[in-house]
Every structure is written in C-alpha cells, then in structure tokens.
C-alpha cells in the first residue's frame, strides 16, 4: 500500500477544495436549518445558479469576471425569493419536498438539450475562470514542503476559499449574537410565539433563506473556479444531502460546526477511499473490485447520517436543545 499517497491526500483533504465548498454550502444550511429551522433541501440549486451565473456571463456572453460574480450572487438572491415566496409558509416536510423539487427543476433545465446553447447541456460550461486566475498574486510554481504542496492556482483558490469561509463564519457569529439572530432562533423554537410578539416571521424566514443561499452559492463559485468548469449533475440532490450530513456532524446552530464537520467529513471520506483502494489493489481485500470502492463511501455517508441522528443528533459541538428536529 502506498502510505505516503494515502496520508498526503488525506491531510490535503482537510483543507482541500471540496472541504471549502462544502463548508460554505453547510454554513448556508446551518443558517437555514440550524438557526431558523428551515429544512431547505435545495441548497445545491443555490450553488448551481451561482456557478452557472458566473459561467454563462463570462463564457457565453463574454462579459468580465466580476460581473459574472455579481450575476451569480443576484441569481442566488432571486432563487431564494422565488423559492421562498411559495414555500416558506409550508410545514417542514412540505418545505423539504418542494425545495428538493425546485432544485431538480433547476438541474434539469441546466442539463437540458433545449438550453444547450446557454448552459451547455450535460457537459456544462468551461472557460470562464481566466479572470479569476489573472488576479492571482502568487507567481507560477509550487508552494509547500514535500508532499504537502499546492500549485499556484490551487493555492489561490484555497486562499480565497478559506477567506470566504472565515468571512461567512464572522457574519454568522455577529448576526446570531444580534437581536436579528435571536429572532431567527426564536422562530426555530416557536414560530407562533414570535408572531404573537409582532414580528413578521415570513420576512425573517425570507431573509434567512437569502443569506444562507448567498453563502451557499459561494460554494458554487469555488467549485466553478477551482475546476474551471461547471456541470449540472454536480448540483444534484446528493450534494445537498452531503452538506446536511456535514452540518449535523459538526453540530447545527454552531458557528464553526459546519467548517469542522466539512473537514472531518472529507478527511474520513478520502481516508476510507485511500485505504480501501489501496487494500484492494494490493490484494488484502479480495471480495471487492476497485469499482466498488466508490459506492462504499456513499454507504458510509448514509450509515453515518443514520447513526448520527439516532445517537448524537447534536453532532460534535451542538447542543441537543438547539436542534430543530422535532416536528412542529
């Protein structure tokens, strides 16, 4: 077994691109689910419209990079409003079904042949990240010590990504300490009580949906820029479910819960994958083929989600009294 590769990929996964983008998606979900109690299962759609907003603006319309970012952010806000107006009055399980359906609609439109000229069908779009890498302050080369090194492009993506994660965490921390954040938490605990105090619950929920959606959509940008492409199937329902697993793993309604959750999640996934593939290749495990290693990771995610919710719904850092998992 190639221990160096296994260890190096695992360590890199702790701060890698997936960790960053899932942390951003999970911070958004934490605002929805953790603080406000909204079961938004359409987070992937927020990432999708942002990634595609950027891609289409730059690659198809030929406009500058920063305009693409603005379009992506605007698209996320618009999606939140369009999604929120009909659904935010619904009960939790209906909200979950509707948001998941809306996310699938968005994905089906992105991958449809009818809109291939705009969104590029199932191949997606590429060639829109030059503007981002033109801002790269790192000269060409590799940075790091030994195997723990990144090329200048990846380093730039990771730097920007972690800055975004930091800013998002700061915003969440400050907002949740404010009276505004207390209203959100009160909505999670008892919507009717908040309403009886004269607060406009719908408006607060909408603000929460927009804020969480915008932070989640940063994950879509990070994906698009890091891999210099977007594909519709990246933004499927399983992406949302992974992000939920991360939030619950780290602990909902905690500022750093999603970030730590994302790091642990990806370290575990990459480690399990490395160990299993290594064991299969070197013949230690004979009852599996290399192709079957991929599904095993999803099985572990499913199993992990079940066990977490059964035995430790508050995750690592959470407080059991603060989890919105009882029916209301």
């Amino acid at each position: 077994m190639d221990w160096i590769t296994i260890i190096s990929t695992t360590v890199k996964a702790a701060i890698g691109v997936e960790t960053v983008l899932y942390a951003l998606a999970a911070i958004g979900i934490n605002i929805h689910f953790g603080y406000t109690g909204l079961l938004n299962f359409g987070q992937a759609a927020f990432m999708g419209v942002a990634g595609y907003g950027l891609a289409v603006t730059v690659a198809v319309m030929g406009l500058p990079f920063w305009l693409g970012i603005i379009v992506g952010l605007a698209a996320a806000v618009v999606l939140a409003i369009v999604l929120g107006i009909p659904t935010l009055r619904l009960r939790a399980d209906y909200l979950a079904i509707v948001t998941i359906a809306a996310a699938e609609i968005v994905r089906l439109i992105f991958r449809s042949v009818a809109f291939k000229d705009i969104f590029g069908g199932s191949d997606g779009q590429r060639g829109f990240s030059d503007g981002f890498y033109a801002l790269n302050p790192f000269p060409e080369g590799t940075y790091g010590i030994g195997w723990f090194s990144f090329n200048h492009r990846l380093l730039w993506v990771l730097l920007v990504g972690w800055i975004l994660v930091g800013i998002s965490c700061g915003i969440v921390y400050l907002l949740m300490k404010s009276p505004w954040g207390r209203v959100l938490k009160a909505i999670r605990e008892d919507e009717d009580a908040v309403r009886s105090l004269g607060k406009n619950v719908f408006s607060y929920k909408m603000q929460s949906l927009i804020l969480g959606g915008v932070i989640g959509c940063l994950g879509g940008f990070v994906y698009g820029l890091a891999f210099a492409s977007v594909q519709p199937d990246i933004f499927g329902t399983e992406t949302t479910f992974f992000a939920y697993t991360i939030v619950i793993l780290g602990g909902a309604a905690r500022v750093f819960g999603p970030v730590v959750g994302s790091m642990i999640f990806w370290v575990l996934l990459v480690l399990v994958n490395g160990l299993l593939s290594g064991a299969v290749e070197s013949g230690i495990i004979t009852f599996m083929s290399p192709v079957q290693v991929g599904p095993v990771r999803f099985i572990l995610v499913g199993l992990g989600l079940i066990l977490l919710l059964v035995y430790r719904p508050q995750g690592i850092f959470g407080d059991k009294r603060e989890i919105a998992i009882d029916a209301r």
Partner: protein
Amino acid sequence: MRRAVIAFTAFLGGLIFLLAVPAQAAAPDQGLRGSLKLQGQPVNGVKIVVTTESGQPVKEVTSNAQGTWEVPITDTGKYKVTLDVKTLPPNAEIRGGNAVRTPTVFSGNMSTVLFALQPKGGGGAAADTGTSSFWTQAAQLTFEGINLGLIIALAALGLSLIYGTTGLTNFAHGELVTLGALLAYLFNVTFGLHLIPAAIIAVIVGGMLGYLQDRLFWGQLRRRGTGTIAMMIISIGVALFLRYVFLIFFGGQTESFSQYTAQPGVQIGPISAAPKNFVAMGIELAVLIIVGIALLRTRTGKAARAVADNPALAASSGINVDRVIRIIWTTGGAIAALAGVMLGLSQNLKYTMGQDILLLIFAGVTLGGLGTAFGALVGSLVVGLFIQVSTLWVPPELKSLGALAVLIIVLLVRPQGILGRRERIG
C-alpha cells in the same frame, strides 16, 4: 415502450465530484442505439449511417435480427444519424418521412434514436396523417401516462399510508421500489425462475422486509421518541445507504427481466402497446382498489385510519397502534416492491430507478393529499398523465419538470391536495 421517464444521473455527478476530476466523465458505455420495428415486428438489415454534426463519418451499422442497432461513441456531442431508406423493406416507410435524426450523446449514456416505421400506406392514409397523428399521439401518450400513473400510484399508496400512520416522510421509499425490482431480477435472472413466481416472491420478500424495517428500525426509533424531522433525515441516510448497496450488488448497468421484455405490440384503436402493459395495469388497478376498499371496510383498515387521525385516541380506544403500523409497513413494503416489478417491466432495471421516480411519487402523494389512500391514486394518475401528455409540447427530457412544477403550484393553491383535509397542512 418508451425508455426511462427521467434520466436523473445524480450519482454520476456525485462520483465526478468525489473524483475531483471533472473532465473524467467519459464512461466507455456511451453511444447511440435504436430499434426498428414495423407493427411490432423487428426489421433487420437496415443500414444506419452515423456521422458527426459536420459530416465526418463515424460508423455504419445494419440492424440485426432483433431490429436493434448500436454505435459506441467516444466523444459526446451532437451527431447525425441517417437511415438509408433504400435498405428498408419495400412495405415500410419512416413515419413523417424524415430519415435524418440529430441526437445528442451524453457522457455515460446510451441515447436512443427513434425511427418510427409504418406500413407504406395508400394515398388516403398519407392524406390524413397531418390531423390524425396529433390525436393518435395524444391517445398513445394518455395510455402511457395512465400506465406510469398507476405505477406511481402503487408506490405513492405505501408512502402515503406510512406517512398517515407514523408521520414519517420516507425519502427511502424509492429504494423500496428499487428493492422490489432487484429482488424480482434476482429470482428471475440469477435463479432462473419465471418472472411471475419471481415477482410474487419479490412482493412477499418486500413485504417481509417492510415488516422487519418497522420492527427493527423505525419502530425502535419511535419508541425512543425520535422526532419526525429527525426520522425524515434518517430516511435520507437509509436511502443513500440502500442505493449504494444496490450499486455494489447489482452494478451500474441497465438490465431487463428475462421474460416479457421485447414483447411485440398490439394495436388497439389508436394505441399500440405490448400486452404486458395491459396485464400490468390490470394488476395495479386491482391492487390499488383492494387496498383502498380494505382501508374503508375491514377492521384493520378502519383501525389504520383511526391511527392516522389520532394515534393517542386510537390507542386509548383499544387499538393496538404498533400492530396497525406494522401491518401498514408490511403492506407498504409489498406494494412498493410490486411497483418496482411493474416499473422494471415497463422500463428497465437500474439501481437508481426508485430514486428517479421518488419526486414523482411525492408529487402524486402531495397532489392527492398526504395520508389519504384514494388521494394517492388520483394524484399519481394526474402526475403520470401530465408527464406523458406534456411531451406533445415540451421536449421529453423536460417532461418531469412540469410535474414538479405542478407539485409546487398545488402546494401554493391547495396545500391539502385534491382529496386531503384542511387539518393536515402546516
């Protein structure tokens, strides 16, 4: 029969994501294929020429004895497929007359290219194709819509009953559907049983697994006092878990049962369909009506509705709530398995087949009203019809989009669904 209703490939997306190499999507099993049939009989020896969009030749094939042809393609994109009309049997012609198709090849996907053949008619037939073909098509699509709707209804009924009695929004219900289909496949193809006994065994095993699921898992969670939202998220975990267990054991390919797959179609009025579809629809309708009547008339059925209305009150009036829920889970598992067999019969078997129709099941249940038995039937039929008939105007790849949009609109206008009661909404 039309190929899969929906081509959700979320798994592909997830895998690509995990590999972190987005360009690696090119799976070897992509290309174009089709099957040529004249009034249900395969047509062989027809030359098919595949070129790229700009006219570069890719491959020439001829259809085999089953009337099928296949061209593997490495690069995704648009291709031009031309059927050589001169190689058609003298009594056949292409419906619509256009011998060129421009399909798009997606990565990891076999795209089906349709050339509908029809007998060379006299002058009269050709004259009225313009007006009658729309209605013929509409009738055909209505039939297919009812066919799909009944399958969705079977799955939706189980989901709706389980929701009604336990409050669980089960995201793993699609996997119960897949399970039924794969169990039937196991007994049918691996063990060599005929499909009918294999299907019966699959339904029985599906029911048993439904019972065990409640006995060993969901029932225990209820006893622990797990909230319904927590259970809903747990069901997502269960769905992920089961789906990829299926992938490991079944593989990612598409399979079909060993009987009744390429059944020649029969023409009834404007509708052409394989006889299996009529039998399947009969069975589906019978099961739906039996379960519906059982809910209304039998003691257990009445008890189930009482539990759905108010579990505490039902328990205090002497109903064994756990027993009722267990019966509901057994029934739900069995009819979900039946839905899977029927879905596998009318389309193909794939490890994501249940997941692919899960949102349509939800749409059917929500449309009819969560927790009502006949609501699930009515809602699912509407969804099935809507999906198929809408292909008259929208491209087939977007047909389930309409159903999902209807789901959202219904929740806006009448959140309790067609037959639901006002109290069930939030």
